[in-house]
């Protein structure tokens, strides 16, 4: 975007400007790249959008793991296209973050240095082919729940990136569900594989919505700024409500002994995720945290000569044009 110059003015605690901003946002007016905005709004967005971008990029790894072992050419082409989309999502989001005056390099360096966060879900291993089904169905399904409200985010470039992403996510979820349908109608071993994948991905998927509302630190401000539209618990409930009937359809058991449908409310009542596990994964102690970062660093370093060669080539072309 064309907004590299940071707005110097927003360092100043200009109360009149902030009040006008709050009013505009409350009236559902969109904020665009060069508009004046409170420094805290800018900071919050940079953090959220870049974490989101990093998640898309790291998120390529668990599924990338199975591209060469997909059971058919059809599945392989689909999985490749899906992982390619996730790369695209990362790039849309980095571009959106850059409109806030931060450079792509800074953000990438934060990821490589291990100082940036990304979604906890991608620190779990993909052990069998059924995990490709469970990830598409559950992980992309949970991502869709989270992302659809973001299409109405007050910050224009983020909202537009999310609209593009949401259009593509539906394919991701359906291809995953299709894998689950195929396995659950297959041999005994295939059914067992599907059930095992659901057992392992169910709870981490519920954790994708973040901690309980009572524990969520940035929630109130994000709601007021219309960055967030629904609370973590509301979205988690919605996800459970739509997903449990799909598991029933597959004839698979959701691994939650407390799960039951409540006639009075029309919602499912469900058990408590293991929040100590969630916190451990966020601290970097999940099963694959180290592996994911090491892989990303290796890929980055292995690509260094390509980046340097491209730059040298462009410089040479430019010199020849001048001469």
């Amino acid at each position, binding site marked *: 975007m064309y907004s590299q110059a940071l707005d110097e003015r927003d360092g100043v605690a200009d109360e009149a400007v902030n009040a006008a901003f709050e009013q505009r946002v409350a009236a559902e007016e969109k904020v*665009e790249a060069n508009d004046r905005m409170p420094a805290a709004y800018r900071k919050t967005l940079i953090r959220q959008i870049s974490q989101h971008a990093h998640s898309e990029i790291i998120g390529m790894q668990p599924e990338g793991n199975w591209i060469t072992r997909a059971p058919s050419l059809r599945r392989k082409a689909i999985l490749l296209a899906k992982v*390619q989309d996730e790369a695209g999502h990362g790039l849309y989001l980095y571009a959106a973050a850059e409109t806030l005056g931060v450079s792509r*390099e800074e953000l990438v360096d934060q990821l490589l*240095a291990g100082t940036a966060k990304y979604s906890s879900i991608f620190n779990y291993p993909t052990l069998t082919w059924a995990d490709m089904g469970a990830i598409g169905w559950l992980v992309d399904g949970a991502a869709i729940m989270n992302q659809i409200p973001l299409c109405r985010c007050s910050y224009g470039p983020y909202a537009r990136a999310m609209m593009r992403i949401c259009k593509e996510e539906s394919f991701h979820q359906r291809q995953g569900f299709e894998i689950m349908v195929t396995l659950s109608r297959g041999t005994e071993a295939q059914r067992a594989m599907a059930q095992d994948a659901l057992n392992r991905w169910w709870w981490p998927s519920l954790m994708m919505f973040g901690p309980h509302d009572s524990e969520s630190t940035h929630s109130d401000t994000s709601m007021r700024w219309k960055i967030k539209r629904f609370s973590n618990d509301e979205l988690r409930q919605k996800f459970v409500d739509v997903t449990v009937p799909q598991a029933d359809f597959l004839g698979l058991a959701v691994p939650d002994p407390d799960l039951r449908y409540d006639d009075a409310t029309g919602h499912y009542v469900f058990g408590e995720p293991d929040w100590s596990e969630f916190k451990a994964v966020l601290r970097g102690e999940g099963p694959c945290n180290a592996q994911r970062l090491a892989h990303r660093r290796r890929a980055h370093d292995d690509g260094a000569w390509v980046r340097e060669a491209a730059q040298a080539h462009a410089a040479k072309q430019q010199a020849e044009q001048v001469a």
Partner: protein
Amino acid sequence: MKTTSGQWPLWEVFLRSRNGLHHQHVGSVHAVDAEMAVANARDVYTRRGEGVSIWVVPSAAIVASDPGEKGELFEPALDKVYRHPTFYEIPDGVANI
């Protein structure tokens, strides 16, 4: 681990979704030159036939109006309601106008 060195220039990407329509801004890419910018824009923004034509423009070449001057620039047009056809009252019984 090497950190990133040497920023690649930023390019704004515009797509024409089909002939007959304007190009529209869709986002940006990094690339060392124009040729790579078109290739990257194709990979990032047209994976599902979203475009039949791509424009890339160095972001630094775009001059934008200052949002701080929004009032001065655009408010004068707001009180000139007579520029809209709905400003005029046409008596009943007059057709085709």
